[in-house]
């Protein structure tokens, strides 16, 4: 008799436990407001990407098309993957000193792991991470970017 009781009570409790789960899913079925899906390309305008999001490395240029990179290559050395290639040219300044000037700041987005150690390493704070995220291109070569704008030059710190 006791076994029989246990038999039926197990059936009852099983149904009860299943019913609680079904009630929950029905609750969400009947409350479409709980839906979290974002319709991505359509909601581009309202999409919230935090400022700190590490999307890609950019070289900061100001309005005079000047950047802060002194071609010291600290970032290149810090980068764990060899994402950054910096080429410099040696130029003679007016007072006869030889000075390294940035020629090309090559950044391979395809190899970047967004660890932001180059940003940490930069003594001039010349580079930063931007929160852009739609990086897909048709050719892998397009991911290799030259970050210094054409015609840009080093920020002259003496002015300040």
């Amino acid at each position, binding site marked *: 008799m006791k076994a029989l009781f246990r038999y039926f009570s197990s059936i009852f409790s099983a149904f009860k436990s299943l019913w609680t789960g079904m009630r929950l899913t029905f609750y969400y079925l009947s409350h479409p407001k709980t839906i979290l899906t974002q319709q991505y390309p359509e909601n581009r305008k309202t999409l919230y990407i935090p400022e700190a999001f590490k999307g890609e490395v950019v070289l900061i240029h100001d309005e005079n098309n000047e950047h802060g990179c002194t071609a010291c290559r600290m970032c290149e050395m810090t980068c*764990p993957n060899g994402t950054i290639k910096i080429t410099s040219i040696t130029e003679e300044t007016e007072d006869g000193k030889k000075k390294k000037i940035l020629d090309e700041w090559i950044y391979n987005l395809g190899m970047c792991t967004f660890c932001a150690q180059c940003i940490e390493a930069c003594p001039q704070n010349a580079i930063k991470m931007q929160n852009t995220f739609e990086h897909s291109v048709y050719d892998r070569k397009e991911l290799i970017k030259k970050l210094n704008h054409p015609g840009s030059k080093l920020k002259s710190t003496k002015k300040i």
Partner: protein
Amino acid sequence: MEIPKQLIPLEDTPGEFVINVGPQHPSTHGVLHLRIKLDGEKILEIEPHLGYIHRGIEKISESLGYRQSIYLTSRMDYLSAHMNNQACSLLVEKGLQIEVPDRAKAIRILMVELQRLASHQLWWGSAGLDMGAVSPFFFAFREREQILEIFEETCGTRLTMNYITPGGVMNDLHPDFVKKVKALIKQFKVNIHEYDKLLTGNIIFQKRTQNVGFLPRDLAISLGASGPVARASGISCDIRKLHPYDGYEKLDFSEIVMDKGDSFTRYLVRIEEMKQSMHIIDQLIDNIPEGDYRARVKGIIRLPEGEYYQRVETARGELGVFVVSDGNKTPYRIKYRTPNFSNLGALQYIAKDSKIGDLVAIMATLDLIIPDIDR
């Protein structure tokens, strides 16, 4: 090279055959390859084959600086990226004897506990998914998404953080951090009951996991299991309690130890751990000390000659970092004692003589992260 011993299909034993589960299988959560000898539905032997995503992190680290090696650790157990970074940072701090500011410690614990929550949530979802319940996966992602958004705001990434660095953390908290975490915890304290409704209390789920995959205490110790897997077998092994770091000793939380050792207990331990994590966050969120978020550490780190070992509690167990330094800027030898590697060892013992369906349940509750095993 001698041919390694492998299971060979026994032609003379009728009914037994060898089947490969993985590397491309929906229930292995990655590319784990198990060769399984079956008798009908019953599992006779399991042989794990690893290395499908072996990236040689230990070898690569030998040619990278300490700072650079840390970013690699995020990619081991990608669901406990913060903990992995923390272990390396703690080791460097121990070697260089750097005092970490209080604020940084508090931020670290907050981040780590949030990560633990996120990790367990994903585990919960995938555990349900492994047993054929699809909906829990999406419920789990609802909460995890919020945590990842918080990470995104402060750390800049969602998965591979590289946020905890030697000396502190990479950057300061986002202004919305406290507000969002509070909202999250408040929400999750309600939503965790849905977890009970969908899986914990569900009779089918209980029958699938109860009395399945017993890991006895002795075996668990002998196998070096750690984390929730070991704690479900009655072993107290929480590094946060045994070897506190980053100020865990000041916090009030309890280690969840249960002693039945079956799949369902492992499940319960993780659910309870989520509650404990929330409790820790509750204590800290209003009391984040002001001050620096990072101590000054030189750009290029050179650890003094010697051997170092640092362990932390990740979401899956004890992560040990063993470093042999010869005084150079790169580690001479670095070894990651990853929790999943040891927990994997348990699989072939506990899944023996169970059914294929049980294997999936056992793997779900062991919560293996394959990149962490392969490194």
